[in-house]
């Protein structure tokens, strides 16, 4: 039996995370507490900073120091981390942020679940930055998606967000963890050139520049202003800006197929499809199981990757599907993406929203399925 938040910690440590900086906040605090206990045992460092801004900064600082780093928070803290998250995205420093979502807006319902930060996780900082968002719906997924998050962060030098929620973070389930040997662990790509030839922001073909930390003879500069391949500010250089920002986005687009994980259930003959993620996907599964028992042809697309948004899975739907239901514990956030993805598909898109701190029940979904069929 393991709690979702605990599984994030175990996944992080298995993936090689050796630094955590955080600030207490429900319902994410267990992650900090477990890290405080476990990290020194594996030679890593934990620090509780004075706030979330500083936590995020410390995590990036440690990552620049060459150590895989992670922080965890919830709503208000996630907002405060956004400026430095944008910094990490811009200067391409790997890091992972776990956001265990709680009810908002503002301090809202601090111990109750919600899925209200889905759009924020993509758009929360200023400027058009690259970011990857993964979303677990089970304890096991907390474990594997945290590992995946660390791996993607290190591989693409990009901040990765694990968007958990108060249900998934606090639930306890039996999990059988894979053997350490079975887990794929990604390390940062090192430069192949000697210090003299090293340009810290000259990217390889995959759009990712090799990275080496300080103190190894490679001295260089990092700036969050628009920068050239040498890492120096080129604040007013339009060509450099064009190349840089496009590369930052392209390195993710190029790997869409590796990054995007979705799960399909009973899609083959489905007339109604439920697009769900996070704790809400759990209800969707219950609902579809009951629906099938009752002879209703319902299916599920479950997104484990929210951003980049998995547009491509909707292509498979063809013309058969009459309705796509999008249950969300918010006022309707990904529903617009679904509509856009289905622009040339006649399927109707129907949102199902709940914002009162309770899960959407299987019954609610089932009722809607019956209504639209």
């Amino acid at each position: 039996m393991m709690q979702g938040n605990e599984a994030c910690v175990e996944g992080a440590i298995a993936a090689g995370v050796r630094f955590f900086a955080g600030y207490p906040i429900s319902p994410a605090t267990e992650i900090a507490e477990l890290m405080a206990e476990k990290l020194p045992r594996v030679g890593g460092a934990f620090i509780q900073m004075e706030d979330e801004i500083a936590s995020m900064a410390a995590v990036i600082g440690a990552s620049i120091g060459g150590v895989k780093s992670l922080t965890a928070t919830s709503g208000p803290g996630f907002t405060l981390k956004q400026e430095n998250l944008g910094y990490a995205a811009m200067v391409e420093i790997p890091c992972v942020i776990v956001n265990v979502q709680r009810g908002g807006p503002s301090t809202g319902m601090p111990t109750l679940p919600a899925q209200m930060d889905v759009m924020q996780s993509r758009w929360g900082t200023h400027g058009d930055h690259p970011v990857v968002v993964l979303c677990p719906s089970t304890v096991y997924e907390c474990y594997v998606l945290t590992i995946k998050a660390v791996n993607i962060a290190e591989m693409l030098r990009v901040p990765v967000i694990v968007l958990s929620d108060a249900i998934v973070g606090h639930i306890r389930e039996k999990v059988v963890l894979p053997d350490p040997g079975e887990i794929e662990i990604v390390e940062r790509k090192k430069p192949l050139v000697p210090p003299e030839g090293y340009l810290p922001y000259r990217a390889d073909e995959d759009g990712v520049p090799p990275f080496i930390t300080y103190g190894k003879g490679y001295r260089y500069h990092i700036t969050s202003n628009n920068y050239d391949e040498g890492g120096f500010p080129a604040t007013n250089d339009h060509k450099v800006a064009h190349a840089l920002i496009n590369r930052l986005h392209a390195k993710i687009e190029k790997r869409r197929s590796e990054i995007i994980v979705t799960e399909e259930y009973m899609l083959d003959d489905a007339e109604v499809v439920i697009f769900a993620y996070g704790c809400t996907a759990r209800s969707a599964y219950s609902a579809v199981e009951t629906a099938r028992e009752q002879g209703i042809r319902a299916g599920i697309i479950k997104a484990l990757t929210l951003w980049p948004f998995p547009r491509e899975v909707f292509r498979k739907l063809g013309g058969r599907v009459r309705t796509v239901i999008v249950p969300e514990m918010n006022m309707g956030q990904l529903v617009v993406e679904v509509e856009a993805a289905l622009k040339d598909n006649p399927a109707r898109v129907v949102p199902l929203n709940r914002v009162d701190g309770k899960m959407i029940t299987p019954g609610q979904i089932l009722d809607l399925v019956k209504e639209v069929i």
Partner: protein
Amino acid sequence: MVLGGIILATAAAVYDGLNATHNQSYGPEARGGASRSEVIISRGVIHYPEIEHPDVLVALNQEAADKFGLNVRDNGIFIADSRCKSVPSKNSVRFYRLPMVDTAYEVAGSELVTNIVALGALAAVTGVVSREALQKAVAASVPRGTEDLNLKALDRGFGLVK
């Protein structure tokens, strides 16, 4: 209560080979105060982890009994501590009133092991997990050095149900 729920779920899932989820809730943020533990045990995969109408309810104080007593599903089981004065219950429910808190005081001189006593009682009434699994789960979950005390509390809990 949270620990009791975890032990029950652990007994079922880890030692009895079933599926189980445990879910908890507190008041505003995470301070002491009232807490609730929800356990689902099933042979199949458990998706939806919230419980509106439990099969079994254990209420250790008046507040819990008042708040959740009427939620128990028809033909369900409701175990309340005998210190609860009034217990809202339905006819369709099998109702037990057991001195769990008192027993805890007898065993340990404080309320501390009440949840373990309650676990024993619950298992005895429902048979949802085996006694052996529960013993293993208790031994593995409680603080080191308190195993014996807790196992004794568990036994006494079983004993409350004749």
